[in-house]
């Protein structure tokens, strides 16, 4: 059964807030985000007869949103450059900040001692598009890897590697904020034992 344009507004309105939230992080500002959501709704309305009623409407709308975003910023590369990303060590932040107060404090509280919410936003907004989309869909919107694969039209394995790399880049960026404020030692100091291994 196909969806009916007559019910389009009531069907899709519940997703407006989360579409807008993602649009702000994708476009980097509220004005462009509003345009992007408007464009998303227009496109969705026009092809609503192709949407199969009963399937995942939220994922379908996000697919239109991310496609609209990609088309707008075609100048930016759709595919991330694969250079430099592998330099970030796995579990980067954990290895650097988790030792001290591990017993008494939740991970969230401990993390927020090192950086602010504004810094989280700016680290996310600095990610290359392909990584940012994956991280937003997973960590903000809570889509499953399979849903993200469908939204971004890429294999699940690619979703996972983009998330993995994107999250590591975030960890590094967030740690660097803490270093720049002098509340975490810079990387060379933090990783003394690793440097010693590497130079021997």
């Amino acid at each position, binding site marked *: 059964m196909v969806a009916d344009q007559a019910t389009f507004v009531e069907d899709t*309105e519940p997703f407006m807030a989360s579409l*807008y*939230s993602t649009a702000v992080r994708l476009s980097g500002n509220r004005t462009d985000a*509003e345009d992007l959501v408007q464009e998303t*709704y227009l496109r969705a309305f026009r092809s609503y007869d192709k949407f199969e009623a009963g399937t995942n409407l939220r994922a379908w709308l996000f697919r239109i949103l991310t496609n609209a975003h990609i088309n707008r910023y075609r100048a930016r590369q759709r595919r991330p450059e694969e250079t430099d990303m592998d330099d970030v060590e796995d579990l980067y932040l954990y290895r650097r900040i*988790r030792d001290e107060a591990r017993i008494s404090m939740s991970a969230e509280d401990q993390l*927020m001692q090192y950086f602010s919410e504004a810094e989280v936003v700016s680290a996310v907004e600095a990610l290359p598009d392909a990584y940012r989309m994956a991280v937003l869909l997973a960590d903000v919107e809570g889509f499953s890897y399979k849903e993200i694969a469908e939204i971004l039209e890429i294999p699940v394995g690619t979703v996972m590697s983009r998330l993995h790399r994107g999250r590591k880049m*975030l960890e590094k960026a967030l740690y660097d904020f803490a270093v720049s404020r002098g509340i975490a030692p810079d990387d060379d100091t933090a990783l003394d034992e690793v440097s010693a291994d590497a130079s021997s």
Partner: protein
Amino acid sequence: MEINNRPLSCNVSSEDVYRMLDGYFEGIDATRSETLSSHLKNCDCCSDVMQFQLGLRTVIGSGCREELPDDVRQRLLESLHKLR
């Protein structure tokens, strides 16, 4: 800088930590994924890492959420109602 993906103190590799975190065991055999799952249940070190990583995802998620202002909602709805 040379990347050094050192294993955890319980000797589990970071790759396996991520596997356990995502519950994604594709590409490794069933015996090994069972071993990992049962290790996880009893390992303080792994559960601390996972709590930390999940906490990080929560922090990223809640930090990035943006409220939809009422005036924006109104404008979007108006444009939606013009669609028919």
